[in-house]
């Protein structure tokens, strides 16, 4: 990839701590902790809204002070097992690089990004494993979160130095945009930069992305061209986005639509997938469109909650799917919301019922819900089918509805 092809957020990513815009007080506190206080309090929690420089600060500080970052973010599983597998070795030993003689590092830093995203179910035990690691760690531990006030982080906060990041002020964002314009030779009206900065709501990353999308092609930016930005905050419905998506004639049109629509990308991907057979009747066109959607799905998976620099490629694949044969578009009735969501909605009652049954089996047999579901339910169902007034009903305390459900259920 040539340097010119880079996203500007990547190209102008801060290399030094002083390059980070705003939050000087937070930066000073962080550096003070890293230099002098990390031996007394081993962990720090950086918190604040997205796009204000938390991750950038950690990367820049690691570069400046010669630390090697070992990172776990929201796209990694962060259960007790996963945390212990990755974080424990990283925090138990000093860096081996020092012994090779080639590079001299200050050691490792464990960086846990988006700790507020640790899930209650999938990442079970993750928070307590992190606390244990903090208490025993030989290396500094840095965590970042958008919302530190959630209950599950309460025990973690007691172990950390807390550093708050605030929204970056509009004049500082304008100043950064002016600098980028100068370096990229973009002739921008001051009012246009003002509009971009105001629209970003303190999120530097989104401001830089907006500047690039609006000015990269022409190297000119007027206030009029920023009019599209205000639509980002409007609630464009899924139907409207779908209609514009399928009716679009050019790939650029779709890319622009997706950039400014506020639909949930996962739901949108499902809806596109549901509606493609109505859009393309020619099997080869349909196959080509599904191929692009599958690639878009791959990018969506890679994006997760933090690799937003890949969003461009996600939009591009989706745009290609809409533009397989733009001439053949005829209006049709859209399937929305996605079939998968509707199915989940309709089966909610049944899933709750099965959950209750598994709970009762679990209580009596001392097994988990999953074991009850897979190892017990099929046999109990068979036993009930053979003897409807089986003593099992009383023993498990099943009510009539639950017995009925067990007898009639197909797949479980």
């Amino acid at each position: 990839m040539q340097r010119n092809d880079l996203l500007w957020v990547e190209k102008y990513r801060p290399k030094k701590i002083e390059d980070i815009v705003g939050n000087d007080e937070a930066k000073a506190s962080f550096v003070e902790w890293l230099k002098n206080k990390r031996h007394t309090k081993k962990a720090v929690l950086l918190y604040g809204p997205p796009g204000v420089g938390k991750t950038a600060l950690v990367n820049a500080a690691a570069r400046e002070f010669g630390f090697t970052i070992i990172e776990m973010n929201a796209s990694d599983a962060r259960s007790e097992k996963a945390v212990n597998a990755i974080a424990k070795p990283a925090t138990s030993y000093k860096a081996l690089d020092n012994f090779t003689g080639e590079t001299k590092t200050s050691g490792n830093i464990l960086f846990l990004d988006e700790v507020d995203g640790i899930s209650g179910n999938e990442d079970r035990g993750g928070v307590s494993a992190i606390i244990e690691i903090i208490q025993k760690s030989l290396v500094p531990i840095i965590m970042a979160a958008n919302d530190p006030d959630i209950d599950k982080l309460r025990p973690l906060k007691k172990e950390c130095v807390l550093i708050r990041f605030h929204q970056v002020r509009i004049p500082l964002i304008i100043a950064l945009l002016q600098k980028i314009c100068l370096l990229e030779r973009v002739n921008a009206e001051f009012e246009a930069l003002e509009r971009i900065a105001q629209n970003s709501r303190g999120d530097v990353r989104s401001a830089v992305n907006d500047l690039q999308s609006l000015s990269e092609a022409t190297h000119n930016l007027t206030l009029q061209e920023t009019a599209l930005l205000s639509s980002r905050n409007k609630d464009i419905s899924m139907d409207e986005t779908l209609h514009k998506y399928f009716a679009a004639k050019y790939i650029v049109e779709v890319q622009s639509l997706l950039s400014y629509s506020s639909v949930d990308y996962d739901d949108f991907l499902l809806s596109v997938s549901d509606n493609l057979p109505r859009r393309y009747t020619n099997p080869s066109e349909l196959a080509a469109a599904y191929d692009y959607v599958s690639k878009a799905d791959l990018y969506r998976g890679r994006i997760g909650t933090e690799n937003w620099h890949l969003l461009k490629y996600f939009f591009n694949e989706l745009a290609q799917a809409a533009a397989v044969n733009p001439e053949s578009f005829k209006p049709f009735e859209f399937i929305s919301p996605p079939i998968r969501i509707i199915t989940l909605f309709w089966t909610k009652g049944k899933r709750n019922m099965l959950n209750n049954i598994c709970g009762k089996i679990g209580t009596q047999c001392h097994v988990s819900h999953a074991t009850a579901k897979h190892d017990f339910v099929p046999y109990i169902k068979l036993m009930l089918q053979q003897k409807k007034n089986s003593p099992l009903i009383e023993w498990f305390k099943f009510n009539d509805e639950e017995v009925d459900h067990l007898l009639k259920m197909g797949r479980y």
Partner: protein
Amino acid sequence: MVAVLNPKAFKLPRVEKEKFITLIRLGLDYNRDQGTFSIKSYNNVEKLIETVSAILGDEVVFQQTCTRCGKNFSCSTCNYVEMCATKNLPFTCVCPQCLRDRKQFEQYLLKF
């Protein structure tokens, strides 16, 4: 009345022990030699200003320092004050004059 304070050193009237402890817990630091307070932690800065404001009996605003020219200015002179999430708080900013002055900006960039 509005009290304009310098975040690096400002004086407060004598307060009772509990109030003093609250101020320190909220993030103030006290310089015993000079008898001045300064802001040490910005984690609870809104609550801190509320408490200081209650002690002084005035609305409290902090001086802003321009990162480009180094001059002090007030948030009331800024065009974006209404949509600023940190208005009147002691954070770095660029003054309205420097923001509009393209020549000065280019000179500022040459420093790096």
